[in-house]
């Protein structure tokens, strides 16, 4: 249960003596949700672990600059998404390789991941999602699995609500086609 509002957490954090306590509250509140968001992008547990830690370190380093224009959760989600995208960019095998290509290669991770515990249907569904362009995939995950509102997703990804709705609709159609063909 969250004892503190976003504003109270920010005030606590700015007090040097209470900073660690405030930050621990933030980690307790959001670490699981942020981890799963990253995990759905990167698939691999090890990679997700690294990126989650980097995300929270960035949150710690930049929290005093947080202006409170959005919710803390939205702000952390944005950092996590950017960190995941940066991670995938660094995985490019060569300069001109597209990040969508890197993302679709994660299907191989899915096959060998010891921390995947779905059945064949779920595996096929995840593979279908991995065929989507990266940003469309992220938006789909946030809407379908995290049940986020389009306005929240729009704040995080910087895409308009209309574009997101269209993207989600197209993503569903592509996934259906993939599942039927496979």
């Amino acid at each position: 249960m969250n004892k503190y509002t976003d504003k109270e957490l920010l005030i606590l954090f700015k007090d040097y003596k209470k900073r660690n306590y405030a930050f621990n509250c933030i980690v307790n509140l959001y670490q699981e949700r942020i981890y799963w968001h990253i995990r759905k992008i990167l698939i691999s547990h090890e990679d997700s672990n690294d990126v989650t830690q980097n995300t929270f370190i960035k949150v710690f380093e930049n929290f005093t600059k947080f202006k409170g224009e959005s919710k803390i959760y939205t702000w952390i989600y944005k950092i996590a998404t950017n960190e995941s995208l940066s991670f995938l960019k660094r995985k490019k095998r060569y300069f001109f390789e597209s990040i969508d290509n890197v993302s679709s290669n994660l299907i191989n991770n899915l096959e060998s991941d010891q921390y995947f515990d779905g059945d064949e249907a779920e595996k096929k569904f995840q593979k279908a999602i991995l065929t989507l362009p990266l940003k469309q995939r992220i938006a789909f995950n946030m809407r379908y699995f995290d049940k986020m509102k389009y306005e929240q997703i729009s704040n995080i990804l910087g895409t308009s609500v209309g574009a997101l709705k269209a993207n989600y609709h197209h993503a569903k159609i592509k996934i259906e086609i993939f599942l039927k063909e496979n």
Partner: protein
Amino acid sequence: MKQNTEKQEVGKRVPFNVPDGYFFDLKNNIQSHTENLSSREGFGGIFTSKTIVLTFVCTVIAVISFNYILNPNSNIENDFINEANEEVILFEIENINEEIFLEFLPQDEYVFSDDIQYLIENNTDYNMIIE
């Protein structure tokens, strides 16, 4: 109806798992990283080993550069200049006009006879002086 709801929940389940106790470890790892960051902040953070080494190297470079600017001539150059000066002096001595040379001789060391002294004082052609 209830079965349909359950099916929907299963359909939206993320089919990944994590090692046992993972989130506890994750929290501890994050906290240990950020506590290190905290201890490096503030005035004490200035004196990290990196900044000390960097400051030392910059100081050494600055001292060497300053010394070079103040004393541009090296020992080698000084020797060269001294040698050149000696050569000039030798050249001057060899080619010195006798008249000038005699002028600068200490008077006590060279005493002319009265006749020669007379000739000198009256600017007589020195060839006339019989040695």
